[in-house]
């Protein structure tokens, strides 16, 4: 790890001013940034520790039914907040399927959104990586890439965004509140993470110095509470990133789908909202054919970026299965293995 200056501001304004110095970074819990600093991928001159900023660790329910989550709320505190988990169950399930209990106790909401890709070539300083060192190339192309992107990638970068949390959030129209040198603004979560194009080093649409202060879920997102799931396929039972994951949420009217929400994880450099697939389900009966059709639409533009063609069919099946799980109903209690297709207590089956 390189030497750096460490400062701990006590107000958002002070933090924004402090980070304006070139080479500065915000430090939340550090579960991703500190790791990247240890391996030399991140070499900040100045670390601005935001964990003591006041007022950013609260969950506030808004008039009308939405919720505002402070950027410093810890992942486990949000996932185990009973009201939150009942209102947005797929989000709680995604949180509990990510990382380990220790990491969830530390990691913050804002930090989860801003975490970097786990592409091995991004982390290996001996490898070419346009995301880490613009213009150096991409060793993932033609390398070990069976877990890389199948949607939205470019010849410059095929990395994926690793977050579970962001997948149901983007399906539920989450909004990010941001404060920066030029004041405050809001960004739809769907627009926060950038696809690589020819500038993969631009990972988000945040401007220099901007700080995520809160995350909001609108009241409408609560209308899916009875039929919302997150499903995540991993290469081991627990404590692993998704090979492919999907959030599925249905708003039912009798035996007809009024509205559907679908997003995928592990397939692109951002959480991938599948709007055409959602539209295909609106007003239809929840049949196997309808779900298969939606899954087909969700992956319509997918193409392998290497030895990962299997992920496309896998993603179709995970979408269809997540929709089936959602249709069966949100489990009364959190499954023992959240989001896992292998849980011996899958939760959904007992009410199916």
């Amino acid at each position, binding site marked *: *790890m390189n030497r*750096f200056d460490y400062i701990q501001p006590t107000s958002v304004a002070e933090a924004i001013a402090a980070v304006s110095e070139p080479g500065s970074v915000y430090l939340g819990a550090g*579960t991703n940034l500190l790791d990247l600093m240890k391996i030399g991928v991140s070499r900040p001159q100045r*670390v601005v520790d935001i964990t003591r900023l006041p007022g950013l660790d609260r969950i506030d329910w808004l008039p009308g039914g939405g919720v505002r989550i402070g950027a410093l709320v810890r992942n486990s505190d949000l996932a185990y907040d009973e009201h939150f988990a009942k209102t947005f169950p797929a989000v709680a399930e995604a949180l509990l399927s990510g990382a380990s*209990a220790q990491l969830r*106790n*530390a990691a913050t909401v804002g930090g989860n959104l801003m975490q970097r890709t786990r592409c091995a070539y991004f982390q290996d300083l001996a490898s070419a990586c346009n995301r880490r060192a613009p213009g150096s190339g991409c060793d993932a192309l033609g390398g070990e890439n069976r877990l890389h992107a199948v949607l939205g990638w470019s010849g410059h970068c095929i990395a994926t965004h690793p977050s579970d949390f962001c997948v149901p959030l983007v399906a539920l129209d989450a909004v990010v509140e941001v404060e920066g040198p030029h004041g405050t603004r809001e960004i739809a979560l769907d627009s926060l993470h950038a696809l690589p194009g020819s500038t993969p080093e631009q990972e988000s649409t945040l401007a220099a110095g901007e700080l995520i202060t809160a995350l909001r879920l609108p009241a409408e997102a609560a209308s899916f509470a009875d039929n919302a799931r997150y499903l995540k396929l991993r290469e081991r039972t627990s*404590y692993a990133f998704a090979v492919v994951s999907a959030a599925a949420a249905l708003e039912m009217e009798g035996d007809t789908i009024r509205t559907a929400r679908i997003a995928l994880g592990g397939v692109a450099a951002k959480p991938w909202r599948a709007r055409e697939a959602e539209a295909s389900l609106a007003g239809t009966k929840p049949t196997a054919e309808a779900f298969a059709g939606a899954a087909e639409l969700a992956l319509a533009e997918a193409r392998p970026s290497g030895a990962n063609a299997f992920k496309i069919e896998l993603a179709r099946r995970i979408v269809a299965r997540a929709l089936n799980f959602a249709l069966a109903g949100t489990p009364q209690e959190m499954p*023992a293995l959240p989001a896992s297709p292998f849980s011996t207590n899958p939760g959904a089956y007992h009410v199916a």
Partner: protein
Amino acid sequence: MALSISLSVNGQPRDVELDDPRVTLLDLLRERLVLAGAKKGCDRGQCGACTVLVDGRRINSCLVLAASLDGAEVTTIEGLADGDTLHPVQAAFIAHDGFQCGYCTPGQIMSAVGLIAEGHAGDDPERIRELMSGNICRCAAYKGITEAVLDAQNTLAGAQSSRRDAA
């Protein structure tokens, strides 16, 4: 730049002068406070051997800067036993052979203490395995570990209810 922090470690107040902000909590404990119970396994938050409690919550001590912890209460494996009397989780790990080489054990035990305090596992072995998945055991003593956590949880719950009965 020098940074002064004050924290409580196993109930003892400690004032620490850091000459370098790069010091993690794990390095502070092991190298400066001579508390070598928490182990440096991967140093990347992947193995859990460095697990300690900070303000009652289990975290990976390798992934937090000591400088950020001014005022925190830290509990390590050295702070669990009461004199020669082992903490119920320590006793249960021995009773159930919850280890072989022992390297991961301080982290496993601190993680189990955190898990029991969190109270989300009930008596379901699958939930315990899932919530202990941040602690890797290279000797694969997982069966004994799961049994030890279940047993310790019952002991602690029993101790709590007998305190209630006595009151």
